[in-house]
């Protein structure tokens, strides 16, 4: 039976491929035809042909085209975390084939790279795993001279953070927060701090990320402790406290907590920037609250694994996709905190429909206090099994 499904899928793919390949050349031949008309009518300077993707997006030219010899680029990125136009434009501009693998957790990415035998050119680690990767020799230093322009255009608030002083290994990609979300139509006593989540009125009405570090982290915060503590006594206290939260939990979901919120299965919980923004667009009653104890801050970054076989293509990719007239696409596809200042300026002038809501929403345009007050998850090394055991006990104790 699986075989049948396989053939169906294959034939569907082939038909799709045929349509694509039929469209491709047609679109490509249209453009030079239009372009050749222009010089004939106007001057003798040939206008460069426009590069257009299959979706009709006009690829901007690279601000500075790099000399590269690689014909391939191996990306290892988060699931659905790259605008589709980037890949097509990069291939059209540089003639490089992009191989694209995805992961859905830092741990998955780390395990794969740590096992060795991979040949990725770029990965997207989140802050806390960067230090671990550097320590394990999994990353190589970035050649900042090749990316001077990009470095200069970044918001300094997202640069030079403690997980990578001087941005020796990483370049900020997107940032965000983990905080409280509630449905104002259904919650009469809105939470303002993490400690409020223990309110018995919320019994069986909440969704939490299935992320042991973050959930244990905010529990530690309610007790007045460091969310990265390695003290077994404090963790034991956090366990007792967290067990009391369990009756309020309807589900844990790290993939898409907004789904249960929008579907009305739960009325409040915790989620991250992008999910909160999308939930709010779906239903304005959803309100995102930065708890007074401090939200959890995170930042995804580009990094280059040691021994990347196509480093030249990787630098070209970073320089090209991070330039403002490319990176604004992130505002359209992934409404997180955008650390690329030049891209925001570009969107302000050219994409006011995206820039307006981005700036207006405290979810994406985070108040300075919320950032200053926030906490970052750090790797706890030896103490990690303690966290895991705590999590297993909390979930196993029913």
């Amino acid at each position, binding site marked *: *039976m*699986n075989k*049948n*499904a396989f053939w*169906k899928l294959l034939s569907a793919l082939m038909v799709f491929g045929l349509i694509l390949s039929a469209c491709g050349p047609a679109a490509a031949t249209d453009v030079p035809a239009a372009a050749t008309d222009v010089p004939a009518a106007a001057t003798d300077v040939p206008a460069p042909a426009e590069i257009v993707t299959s979706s009709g997006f006009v690829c901007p030219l690279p601000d500075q085209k790099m000399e590269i010899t690689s014909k391939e680029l191996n990306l290892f990125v988060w699931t659905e975390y790259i605008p589709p136009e980037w890949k097509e434009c990069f291939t059209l501009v540089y003639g490089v084939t992009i191989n694209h693998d995805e992961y859905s*957790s830092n*741990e*998955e990415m*780390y*395990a794969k790279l*740590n096992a060795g035998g991979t040949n990725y050119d770029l990965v997207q680690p989140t802050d806390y795993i960067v230090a*671990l990767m550097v*320590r*394990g020799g999994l990353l190589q230093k970035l050649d900042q001279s090749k990316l001077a322009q990009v470095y200069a255009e970044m918001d300094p608030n997202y640069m030079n953070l403690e997980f990578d002083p001087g941005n020796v290994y990483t370049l900020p990609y997107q940032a965000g927060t983990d905080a409280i979300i509630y449905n104002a139509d259904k919650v009469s006593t809105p939470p303002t701090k993490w400690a409020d989540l223990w309110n018995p009125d919320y019994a*069986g009405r909440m969704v939490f990320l*299935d992320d*042991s*570090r973050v959930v244990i982290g905010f529990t530690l915060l309610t007790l007045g402790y460091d969310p990265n503590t390695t003290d077994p006594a404090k963790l034991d206290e956090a366990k007792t406290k967290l067990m009391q939260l*369990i009756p309020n*939990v*309807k*589900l*844990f*979901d790290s993939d898409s907590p907004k789904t249960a919120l929008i*579907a*009305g*299965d739960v009325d409040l919980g915790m989620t991250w920037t992008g999910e909160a923004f999308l939930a709010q667009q779906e239903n304005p009653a959803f309100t995102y609250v930065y708890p007074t104890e401090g939200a959890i801050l995170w930042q995804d970054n580009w990094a280059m694994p040691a021994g990347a076989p196509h480093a030249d293509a990787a630098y070209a990719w970073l320089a090209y996709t991070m330039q403002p007239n490319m990176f604004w696409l992130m505002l359209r596809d992934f409404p997180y905190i955008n650390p690329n200042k030049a891209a925001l300026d570009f969107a302000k002038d050219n994409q006011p429909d995206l820039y307006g809501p981005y700036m207006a929403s405290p979810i994406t345009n985070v108040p300075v206090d919320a950032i200053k007050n926030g906490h970052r998850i750090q790797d706890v*090394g*030896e103490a*990690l*099994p303690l*966290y*895991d*055991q705590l*999590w*297993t*006990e909390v*979930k*196993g104790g*029913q």
Partner: protein
Amino acid sequence: MFQRLREDKALQGTLLILPTLAVMVGLLIIPLGLTLIISFGQRTADGGVIYTFTLDNYLRLVGITPGCGFKSECFDPLYANILWRSLTLALQTTALVILLAYPLSYFIARAPLKRRNTFLFMVLVPLWTNFVIRVYAWMMILRTQGVLNGILGWLANLLGLPFVPLEMLYTPSAVLVGMVYEFLPFMILPIYTSLEKIDPALYEAAADLGANAARTFLRVTLPLSMPGIVAGTILVFIPVMGTFIVSDILGGRQVILIGNLIQRQFLDARDPTFGSAASLILMVMTLIVTYFYTRKFGFGEEIVAV
């Protein structure tokens, strides 16, 4: 050389099983050996393995805190509870699947020959869809504002009854429903095969000898279909022991099963040594249950009716 190959039956046999043997050794025996070695090792802070010989991982699994001694306060049945929970869920699922699959298989096996293929086809059609997508479909059905509550609400409205949407999704029952649904076809097919093979003359003989329907079923049909039930049980029970996707999606990740535990060790906890020990324990436990089960009921081979 070639002549020898033509004549030597044993050599032919060896050559023919060589590819399978290579796969079994390369992808089963060797990884299993590595798992065993790693399970006796020690974790490093970054998730590496120090190859030593320590029983700590196994002690932790059975609930003894390493280095604490054999006092009662050192005993923590955390992981034993998780194993127990996984085992009960697997046994419940298997029992329910047998109860549901048997009548259906019986119905198909006794249907006119022309219809049988259509019915079997209908049993198999859902398998064309991806496993996970089928679980998500149950999510749509069971959620508070989902299809089932919609239908119930509509019916209640029709009858003028008050209706409060039922909380079905993210409960243990939802997990059980999803598990039973996912594994039902793997029980229907073997039971159908063994029922279909029963010679109708045996039923006539039973009737001639004065057996009523219930007696015929208990003395003829059931014993003759036991091989199907056994084969189906093995096909269902073993994968169910290790699976956690259904419980994660329909149960809202509120509980940890042995499958979750193992996965977490290799990812979030970065403790491959403990993960290896846990997967070996799971394997041993599954083997033990399967062993006693097949000792009692045979390995799905034909049992001659007494």
